[in-house]
Protein backbone atom coordinates (compact mmCIF):
# COMPACT_ATOMS: atom_id res chain seq x y z
CA UNK A 1 0.00 0.00 0.00
CA UNK A 2 2.80 2.36 0.98
CA UNK A 3 4.65 1.61 -2.24
CA UNK A 4 1.54 2.34 -4.25
CA UNK A 5 1.07 5.67 -2.48
CA UNK A 6 4.70 6.55 -3.07
CA UNK A 7 4.40 5.62 -6.73
CA UNK A 8 1.26 7.75 -7.09
CA UNK A 9 2.97 10.68 -5.36
CA UNK A 10 6.00 10.30 -7.59
CA UNK A 11 3.80 10.16 -10.69
CA UNK A 12 1.94 13.29 -9.66
CA UNK A 13 5.20 15.13 -9.02
CA UNK A 14 6.59 14.01 -12.36
CA UNK A 15 3.42 15.19 -14.05
CA UNK A 16 3.75 18.51 -12.28
CA UNK A 17 7.38 18.82 -13.40
CA UNK A 18 6.42 18.06 -16.98
CA UNK A 19 3.73 20.72 -16.84
CA UNK A 20 6.27 23.23 -15.54
CA UNK A 21 8.70 22.35 -18.31
CA UNK A 22 6.05 22.65 -20.98
CA UNK A 23 4.89 25.98 -19.60
CA UNK A 24 8.50 27.19 -19.64
CA UNK A 25 8.96 26.26 -23.27
CA UNK A 26 5.64 27.77 -24.24
CA UNK A 27 6.86 30.98 -22.66
CA UNK A 28 10.14 30.75 -24.59
CA UNK A 29 8.32 30.30 -27.88
CA UNK A 30 5.93 33.10 -27.06
CA UNK A 31 8.84 35.42 -26.17
CA UNK A 32 10.67 34.52 -29.35
CA UNK A 33 7.61 35.21 -31.49
CA UNK A 34 6.91 38.51 -29.76
CA UNK A 35 10.47 39.78 -30.27
CA UNK A 36 10.63 38.64 -33.90
CA UNK A 37 7.23 40.10 -34.73
CA UNK A 38 8.21 43.44 -33.22
CA UNK A 39 11.47 43.63 -35.19
CA UNK A 40 9.70 42.63 -38.41
CA UNK A 41 7.05 45.27 -37.90
CA UNK A 42 9.16 48.15 -36.60
CA UNK A 43 12.56 47.31 -38.09
CA UNK A 44 14.16 47.89 -34.71
CA UNK A 45 14.28 46.55 -31.20
CA UNK A 46 14.01 50.03 -29.73
CA UNK A 47 10.85 50.63 -27.79
CA UNK A 48 10.03 46.97 -27.28
CA UNK A 49 8.59 46.71 -23.83
CA UNK A 50 7.28 43.50 -22.32
CA UNK A 51 7.87 43.25 -18.61
CA UNK A 52 7.59 39.47 -18.65
CA UNK A 53 10.64 39.09 -20.90
CA UNK A 54 13.97 39.20 -19.13
CA UNK A 55 16.44 40.44 -21.72
CA UNK A 56 20.08 39.96 -20.83
CA UNK A 57 23.26 41.51 -22.15
CA UNK A 58 25.75 38.78 -21.44
CA UNK A 59 28.51 40.00 -23.80
Amino acid at each position, binding site marked *: MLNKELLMKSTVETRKDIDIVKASFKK*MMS*DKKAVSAYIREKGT*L*KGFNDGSIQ*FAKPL
Partner: protein
Amino acid sequence: MVQFSLPSHYDVYEEENGYCFDTDSGNTYYVTFIKYPPISEYLSVDIFMMNIDRADELNHLNGDKNLVRNTILYIIWRFFSLHNDALITICDIMDGRQACRKRLFNRWFNEFADGELSKLEATLSVEGTETYASLIFRTDINNKESLETEFSLLSDINFYT
Protein backbone atom coordinates in the same frame (compact mmCIF):
# COMPACT_ATOMS: atom_id res chain seq x y z
CA MET B 1 39.19 29.09 -22.82
CA VAL B 2 37.19 28.91 -26.03
CA GLN B 3 39.31 30.18 -28.93
CA PHE B 4 38.01 32.28 -31.77
CA SER B 5 39.75 32.09 -35.11
CA LEU B 6 37.50 34.05 -37.45
CA PRO B 7 39.01 37.53 -37.29
CA SER B 8 36.84 39.26 -39.82
CA HIS B 9 33.37 40.19 -38.63
CA TYR B 10 31.01 43.14 -38.42
CA ASP B 11 31.15 45.45 -35.44
CA VAL B 12 28.63 44.42 -32.81
CA TYR B 13 27.08 47.17 -30.77
CA GLU B 14 24.66 47.30 -27.89
CA GLU B 15 21.16 48.48 -28.32
CA GLU B 16 18.14 48.63 -26.10
CA ASN B 17 17.34 45.02 -25.12
CA GLY B 18 20.16 43.42 -27.08
CA TYR B 19 22.88 43.69 -29.68
CA CYS B 20 23.00 44.42 -33.36
CA PHE B 21 25.26 44.67 -36.35
CA ASP B 22 24.86 46.29 -39.75
CA THR B 23 25.74 44.47 -42.94
CA ASP B 24 27.28 45.81 -46.14
CA SER B 25 23.95 45.17 -47.87
CA GLY B 26 22.19 47.63 -45.57
CA ASN B 27 20.45 45.18 -43.30
CA THR B 28 20.60 45.18 -39.52
CA TYR B 29 20.74 41.97 -37.52
CA TYR B 30 19.42 41.93 -33.98
CA VAL B 31 20.74 39.39 -31.52
CA THR B 32 18.86 39.05 -28.28
CA PHE B 33 19.46 36.92 -25.23
CA ILE B 34 16.54 36.11 -22.96
CA LYS B 35 17.37 34.60 -19.62
CA TYR B 36 15.41 31.79 -17.99
CA PRO B 37 15.91 30.14 -14.62
CA PRO B 38 16.69 26.43 -14.31
CA ILE B 39 13.68 24.31 -15.22
CA SER B 40 13.20 21.80 -12.48
CA GLU B 41 15.17 18.60 -12.99
CA TYR B 42 14.90 18.93 -16.75
CA LEU B 43 17.53 21.63 -17.11
CA SER B 44 19.39 22.49 -13.97
CA VAL B 45 21.42 25.42 -15.28
CA ASP B 46 20.54 29.00 -16.15
CA ILE B 47 19.56 29.14 -19.79
CA PHE B 48 19.91 31.95 -22.27
CA MET B 49 17.76 31.74 -25.37
CA MET B 50 19.58 33.41 -28.25
CA ASN B 51 17.49 34.86 -31.07
CA ILE B 52 18.69 36.29 -34.36
CA ASP B 53 16.39 38.54 -36.35
CA ARG B 54 16.84 40.74 -39.39
CA ALA B 55 15.33 44.21 -39.60
CA ASP B 56 14.56 43.61 -43.27
CA GLU B 57 13.47 40.02 -43.73
CA LEU B 58 13.34 40.42 -47.51
CA ASN B 59 16.99 41.40 -47.73
CA HIS B 60 18.79 38.06 -47.88
CA LEU B 61 22.06 39.50 -49.18
CA ASN B 62 24.77 38.63 -46.76
CA GLY B 63 27.66 40.01 -48.77
CA ASP B 64 31.05 38.45 -49.23
CA LYS B 65 33.58 37.01 -46.85
CA ASN B 66 31.03 35.22 -44.65
CA LEU B 67 30.84 38.26 -42.42
CA VAL B 68 27.35 37.50 -41.11
CA ARG B 69 28.40 33.96 -40.23
CA ASN B 70 31.60 35.18 -38.62
CA THR B 71 29.76 37.81 -36.60
CA ILE B 72 27.20 35.36 -35.24
CA LEU B 73 29.94 32.90 -34.38
CA TYR B 74 31.91 35.73 -32.79
CA ILE B 75 28.90 36.54 -30.58
CA ILE B 76 28.62 32.89 -29.53
CA TRP B 77 32.35 32.72 -28.87
CA ARG B 78 32.17 35.91 -26.83
CA PHE B 79 29.30 34.50 -24.79
CA PHE B 80 31.19 31.33 -23.94
CA SER B 81 34.40 33.16 -23.17
CA LEU B 82 32.48 34.99 -20.46
CA HIS B 83 29.93 32.42 -19.27
CA ASN B 84 29.65 28.76 -18.49
CA ASP B 85 25.89 28.61 -18.89
CA ALA B 86 23.87 26.92 -21.60
CA LEU B 87 22.62 28.64 -24.71
CA ILE B 88 19.45 27.45 -26.35
CA THR B 89 18.41 28.30 -29.86
CA ILE B 90 15.09 27.41 -31.46
CA CYS B 91 14.73 27.69 -35.22
CA ASP B 92 12.16 30.24 -36.29
CA ILE B 93 9.09 28.70 -37.96
CA MET B 94 7.58 31.89 -39.39
CA ASP B 95 8.63 31.30 -43.00
CA GLY B 96 8.86 27.49 -43.02
CA ARG B 97 12.65 27.56 -43.48
CA GLN B 98 13.53 26.03 -40.12
CA ALA B 99 15.22 22.95 -41.64
CA CYS B 100 17.45 25.21 -43.77
CA ARG B 101 18.36 27.24 -40.69
CA LYS B 102 19.24 24.08 -38.81
CA ARG B 103 21.46 22.78 -41.61
CA LEU B 104 23.19 26.12 -42.03
CA PHE B 105 23.81 26.57 -38.33
CA ASN B 106 25.08 23.00 -38.01
CA ARG B 107 27.56 23.61 -40.78
CA TRP B 108 28.79 26.82 -39.16
CA PHE B 109 28.99 25.19 -35.78
CA ASN B 110 30.88 22.15 -37.01
CA GLU B 111 33.41 24.32 -38.82
CA PHE B 112 33.92 26.53 -35.82
CA ALA B 113 33.41 24.67 -32.55
CA ASP B 114 36.58 22.58 -32.77
CA GLY B 115 35.61 20.39 -29.82
CA GLU B 116 35.50 23.25 -27.35
CA LEU B 117 31.76 23.65 -27.59
CA SER B 118 29.17 20.89 -27.58
CA LYS B 119 25.72 20.96 -29.07
CA LEU B 120 22.69 18.79 -28.39
CA GLU B 121 19.79 18.80 -30.77
CA ALA B 122 16.16 17.88 -30.56
CA THR B 123 13.11 18.14 -32.72
CA LEU B 124 10.01 19.72 -31.27
CA SER B 125 6.56 20.47 -32.48
CA VAL B 126 5.32 24.03 -32.16
CA GLU B 127 1.65 24.50 -32.93
CA GLY B 128 1.79 21.44 -35.14
CA THR B 129 4.92 22.54 -36.99
CA GLU B 130 8.20 20.72 -36.58
CA THR B 131 11.22 22.76 -35.66
CA TYR B 132 14.58 22.28 -34.01
CA ALA B 133 16.12 23.21 -30.70
CA SER B 134 19.83 23.20 -29.95
CA LEU B 135 21.48 23.40 -26.58
CA ILE B 136 25.05 24.69 -26.75
CA PHE B 137 27.51 24.60 -23.89
CA ARG B 138 31.21 24.42 -23.23
CA THR B 139 32.50 20.89 -23.59
CA ASP B 140 34.35 21.25 -20.30
CA ILE B 141 31.19 22.20 -18.38
CA ASN B 142 31.09 20.36 -15.07
CA ASN B 143 27.68 18.78 -15.45
CA LYS B 144 27.85 17.74 -19.11
CA GLU B 145 26.43 14.27 -18.51
CA SER B 146 23.46 15.54 -16.55
CA LEU B 147 22.81 18.20 -19.20
CA GLU B 148 22.72 15.49 -21.85
CA THR B 149 20.32 13.43 -19.77
CA GLU B 150 18.13 16.43 -19.02
CA PHE B 151 17.98 17.53 -22.65
CA SER B 152 17.08 14.00 -23.62
CA LEU B 153 14.22 14.10 -21.10
CA LEU B 154 13.03 17.34 -22.64
CA SER B 155 13.05 15.75 -26.03
CA ASP B 156 11.16 12.71 -24.71
CA ILE B 157 8.30 14.88 -23.48
CA ASN B 158 8.43 16.97 -26.69
CA PHE B 159 9.25 20.18 -24.76
CA TYR B 160 6.06 21.87 -25.41
CA THR B 161 2.92 20.12 -26.64
